[in-house]
């Protein structure tokens, strides 16, 4: 069973080495691939010295593209499972086993790690952002028929079907809620597992007030039209 940890990274120079160290320590049998989305900090110079595989996008095209490139790499190199881990240290390497378990045991095609379900520690402080996250989760749950408590989580595990599908069709922009709809709409089985998340080690969220507004608007529109789209098809080859 070949497993790849995919780290889409943009300006994560301060936390990336620690994230990779912890992946190496906790999950020594898992390969790591960093996809740099044209960072403007030292991430770029850091890549060759990290001792892991890396791709560098030559223009800033967004996280969706970084993930698609990583998934195509996984497809080419014959990986069975891809775990998407953020480069800011929010996603502990120790939770990867729990993320992969539903793929192996319950036959799920994709797994999303939820910060909010179960008793796992992390909670967004109550406020407009939490309300927005709840609203999106409720909408996605209603549209997919899968109970989702955290529709904006970036902690994912993909099985072979999801890898083939998303290598060409992974959404862009602020992709996570749309990704849930796409997977469910294409007939793939999505499972949610409660996981513990850390506070980010360094850097700040890329969502400023203006961008948050734009993210909400694009997500809302994407969610409204997604159910009327034709289901996406899996890529055939590697």
């Amino acid at each position, binding site marked *: 069973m070949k497993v790849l940890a995919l780290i889409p990274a943009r300006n994560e120079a301060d936390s990336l080495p620690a994230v990779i160290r912890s992946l190496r320590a906790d999950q020594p049998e898992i390969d790591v691939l960093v996809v740099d989305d044209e960072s403007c900090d030292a991430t770029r110079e850091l890549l060759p010295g990290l001792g892991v595989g890396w791709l560098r996008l030559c223009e800033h095209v*967004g996280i969706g*593209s970084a993930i698609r490139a990583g998934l195509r790499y996984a497809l080419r190199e014959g990986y069975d499972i891809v775990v998407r881990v953020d480069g800011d240290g929010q996603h502990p390497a120790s939770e990867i086993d729990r993320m992969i378990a539903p793929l192996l045991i319950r036959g799920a095609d994709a797994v999303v790690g939820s910060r909010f379900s179960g008793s796992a520690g992390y909670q967004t402080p109550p406020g407009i952002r939490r309300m927005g996250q709840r609203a999106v989760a409720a909408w996605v749950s209603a549209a997919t028929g899968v109970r989702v408590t955290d529709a904006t989580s970036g902690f994912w595990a993909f099985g072979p079907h999801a890898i083939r599908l998303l290598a060409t069709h992974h959404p862009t922009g602020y992709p996570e809620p749309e990704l849930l709809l796409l997977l469910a709409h294409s007939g793939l089985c999505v499972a949610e597992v409660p996981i513990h998340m850390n506070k980010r080690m360094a850097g700040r969220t890329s969502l400023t007030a203006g961008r948050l507004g734009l993210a909400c608007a694009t997500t809302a529109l994407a969610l409204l039209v997604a159910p009327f789209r034709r289901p996406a098809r899996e890529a055939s080859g590697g």
Partner: protein
Amino acid sequence: MGNLVQIGSVVVSGALLLLVIDLVRRRKLTEEYSFIWLLCAAALLVLSLWRDILHVTARWLGVYYPPAVLLLVLIFFVFVASLYFSVVISGQRRQIEHLVEELALLDQRMREAEREKIDRFPIG
């Protein structure tokens, strides 16, 4: 419609038509994207040359000042053209994303091949 307005609109729409054709001739505009502008210029030219069409259309639409129909046609074409170009840009955005992704994968393959070469022939 006064003669001056008619002459003005014939000249402007004729000039627009010639401009678009010239842009295509100089390869500044591809044929594919020129059709909508050719259509727009031709429609304006026809409407300004034959007043009757304009008057009938104006009466039919309930517009009191017939030259306003010219504006209406122009606005319609500009709107359709903008929408069309937004679609084109969105398509190009997808193509660029795809190219950037493929380039990153190719670059990784090249590095891999270089390293293999160095491993196999360490001296040369």
